């Protein structure tokens, strides 16, 4: 097993210790889904559809977005990285032949396996209430393109969180930046509303931003909100963003290390 494989296994074990935190988070998710159900149920009341989609399709979109967050969303990786830097724990990685990005990515993958499991449990618990409202398309290409889109989304989410975590090289407190970016990411990522409900001009501008690919894009492919051509084009843009953000993460890491002062024995 490679060293990153070991990091993954250790990550799995340490995340299982916090299984109750994930379970509680899943419970919050359920309540959040109730809010979505009530709000959008009221919005769709008396209407066959909005933006070309039915209430069931829109609710399915939100369910998929939430489940995706459990599997590929970055939760508190930025905070963990900033803590490594602030507490000097990062020094041990500088002395060993370990790539910190790869190490953190392994731990991130392990955490998502655990949180994804709890997300699925939450979905199973919610299913009896929402089953009649779920409407997933059945085209095979959606899964074929949706899976790589999910992988790239995970990389984009992780890279952004990694960059924010590295801000701890320069700032003592990064939480403000993180929550600020969370507001932008939630809005432009399509977690507040499906982005196709935006005015067309705004939607076309937003689709060139990396946030678009943080939740909306894979969910739109999987739930039938976008067609094949859009998905193929989007996948190309998403791959470019994933590559650019990984490069940015490496650049920030290198610059940050120049700032870093390791103290102690």
């Amino acid at each position: 097993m490679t060293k990153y494989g070991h990091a993954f296994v250790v990550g799995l074990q340490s995340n299982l210790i916090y299984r109750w935190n994930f379970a509680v988070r899943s419970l919050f998710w359920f309540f959040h889904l109730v809010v979505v159900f009530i709000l959008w149920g009221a919005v769709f009341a008396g209407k066959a559809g909005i933006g070309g989609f039915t209430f069931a399709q829109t609710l399915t979109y939100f369910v998929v977005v939430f489940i995706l967050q459990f599997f590929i969303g970055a939760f508190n990786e930025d905070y963990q990285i900033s803590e490594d830097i602030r507490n000097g724990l990062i020094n041990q990685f500088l002395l060993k032949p370990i790539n910190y990005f790869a190490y953190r990515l392994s731990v991130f993958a392990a955490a998502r396996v655990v949180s994804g499991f709890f997300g699925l449990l939450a979905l199973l618990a919610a299913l009896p209430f929402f089953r009649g409202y779920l409407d997933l398309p059945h085209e095979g290409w959606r899964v074929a393109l949706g899976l790589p889109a999910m992988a790239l989304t995970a990389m984009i989410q992780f890279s952004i969180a990694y960059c924010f975590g590295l801000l701890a090289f320069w700032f003592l407190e990064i939480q403000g930046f993180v929550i600020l970016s969370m507001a932008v990411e939630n809005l432009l990522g399509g977690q507040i509303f499906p982005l196709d409900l935006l005015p067309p001009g705004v939607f076309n501008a937003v689709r060139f931003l990396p946030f678009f690919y943080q939740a909306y894009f894979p969910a739109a492919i999987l739930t039938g909100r976008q067609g094949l051509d859009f998905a193929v084009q989007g996948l190309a843009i998403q791959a470019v963003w994933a590559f650019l953000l990984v490069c940015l993460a490496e650049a920030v890491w290198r610059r940050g290390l120049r700032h870093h002062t390791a103290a102690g024995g």
Partner: protein
Amino acid sequence: MRTLKGYLGIWLASARYSLVRATMFRGDLFIWALVEFFWISVNVIMVGVIYRHTATVAGWSMYEMLILVGTSMLIQRFLMAFFWSGIYEMGRNVRSGLFDFILAQPGDPLFMASTRKLELDGLINSVVAAGLVVYAASKLGLRPGPGDLALYACMVGCGVVIHYGALVIAMSLAFWITSSQGVEGSYFTLMEFSRLPKEAFKSGLLSVVFVWILPAVVVSNAPARVLLHGFQPLWAAALGAATLGWFALAVVVFRLGLRRYTSASS
């Protein structure tokens, strides 16, 4: 009366310290003010996007909905300004044993723990939230009288007390569980309901649970209705009862938790 004056003196001293601290870390203040402003904007944009596709939601027009969202935000900003930091830190302090520091202070532990810090960014953004309510009211051509405005302010105050109670109860779990990290999420999840109009709750069960048992909906709907429709006795009574009930429950839960506190080894 003398005790009340004493507590006011303690609070003023804490507030003065917080303001001095905020002006020392101006960059931090700017970032956090921006954070809260962004979250208000997210809610306003959501309302804007929804109403691009519909004229009403559960019988509420866009500007009526903005009054509701603005009121909900206003209450939450006040909570953030006056109580959030103190209560949030309470969870961590209980775990680390630093709560001893609160217990050693000359006053009621709940008061001392929850009023330690005044956050200027929350106060700044309460002006933004109030501005949103005023804007929406002016768009609707509302001209509430002094009585309605006083009642609205009073109901917003009740809302802050209810939010305070819910947050204290959530963070008091730290006395029972090993890690309270993320517990504050339960408060935010509950308060998501406060941005929904009561009429949106079609199911009887959901209405009973979220409108009448849990306080989230009544907290924002009651004051918003005062501006929109004037004094409504049922809503005022429900809000008053919820205020007393949730504050009393918070005090009881906190005191029960305090009995379990065994300093640094807690």
